[in-house]
């Protein structure tokens, strides 16, 4: 395997995109925007502790240790982004990210969970070979890409599977979110205007999420499945303005670029 392997460049793109998101989500870089997810990021996410502190997993760090952990996490994330000891930096950033998150009961959130998981998956793969200040030796680019594909497929599967319940499928949940303005804006108002459209949108989301794991792996469809996934995230971004989860998925989907066409056989 050489550095010309087609999987290496997309993997490096994914590393750069996810590394940038890591820093944007855990440092005050975006604080001037006052977007909801920037709350608590000064000086770094988790330090100082603004929320309810505790030790839900039995590991309670003293304030000084927590501050040091946040600094180390940030340095590791920078190393991961720039491709300096990518593997080590990614693993450290992920581990400390979880450790700091575990200091707050109910501190778990899906955006950070995916951020840390994605960082780990890219770090242990070949994402640090290209576009890296200190490139790592190649191991198995194809396997690295397969791992990212598996992570993405599992996220979509569980997201869809958990929505297989009557109160999601009949549109009630979306209607509630819409009423409470958790989902709002012109696009949301248009597609969630009536009960029938709420049910339709709910079912389209479930169908898409449950189809994507198959589409991402099936030889005939895996070329365009990332585009379908990106379109879904773009719609959710327009309607719900969620945290950075959609962007993290997009960063991971970049790793599957360029789509490999199905072979004639």
């Amino acid at each position, binding site marked *: 395997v050489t550095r010309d392997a087609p999987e290496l460049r997309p993997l490096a793109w994914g590393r750069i995109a996810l590394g940038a998101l890591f820093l944007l989500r855990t440092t005050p870089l975006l604080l001037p*925007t006052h977007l909801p997810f920037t709350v608590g990021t000064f000086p770094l996410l988790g330090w100082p502790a603004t929320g309810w502190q505790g030790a839900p997993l039995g590991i309670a760090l003293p304030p000084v240790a927590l501050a040091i952990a946040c600094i180390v996490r940030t340095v590791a994330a920078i190393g991961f982004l720039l491709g300096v000891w990518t593997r080590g930096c990614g693993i450290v950033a992920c581990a400390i990210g979880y450790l700091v998150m575990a200091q707050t009961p109910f501190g778990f959130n899906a955006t950070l969970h995916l951020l840390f998981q994605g960082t780990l998956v890219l770090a242990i793969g070949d994402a640090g070979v290209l576009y890296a200040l200190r490139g790592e030796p190649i191991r198995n680019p194809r396997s690295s890409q397969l791992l990212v594909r598996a992570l993405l497929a599992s996220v979509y599967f569980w997201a869809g599977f958990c929505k297989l319940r009557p109160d999601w499928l009949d549109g009630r949940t979306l209607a509630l979110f819409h009423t409470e*303005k958790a989902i*709002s804006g012109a696009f949301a108002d248009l597609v969630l205007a009536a009960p029938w459209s709420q049910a339709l949108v709910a079912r389209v989301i479930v169908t898409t999420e449950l189809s994507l794991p198959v589409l991402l792996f099936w030889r005939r469809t895996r070329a365009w499945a990332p585009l379908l996934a990106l379109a879904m995230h773009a719609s959710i971004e327009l309607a*719900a*303005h969620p945290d950075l989860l959609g962007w993290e998925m997009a960063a991971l989907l970049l790793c599957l670029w360029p789509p490999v066409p199905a072979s004639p056989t």
Partner: protein
Amino acid sequence: MGGSQESGHDGGRVGAKAKRGLRANGPVVFLGALFVVSVSTRCSSRLDGSGSTDAGASSGASSGASTSGASTSIPPIDEDSGSDAGLFLGVVSSDASGETDAADAALASDSGPVSCPADGGACDIPPSICRDSNHAAYFTNPRCVDGLCAFDMQTLDCPSGCNNGGCILNVTK
């Protein structure tokens, strides 16, 4: 002359190289640009108040709401203190648009401070309200002061906005 031609060639070569690099890495550059546009749009919608989830919904008892008497007015939010607990004797309020939300409706049933129950029971804690588009107020420690129900008011930051007396949920967190 020759030097300037050479530097012109160098400049052209660098430009061509940059173009090639940009083309070769188009997807990640495109994603980055899209992210910048998205964040800018969300920011501008927050600033002009026309945003949806980010801007939040302004309803409930705003700090400028009409109230009945000094003892029932909602104190302004002290940005420096995380929790501005204060004595609070009932409230009648409506927002600037005249709409009354669920929390207001419950509170507006009385046209002034709430009297303590005659049977000596505890005062009912009123529902939380929106103090402004990004702060919810909730009440604790019900007690009787001079025959009137009094509560401590605490303020909660709502990063995604306040609506119907509660913080707006960020759907995907």
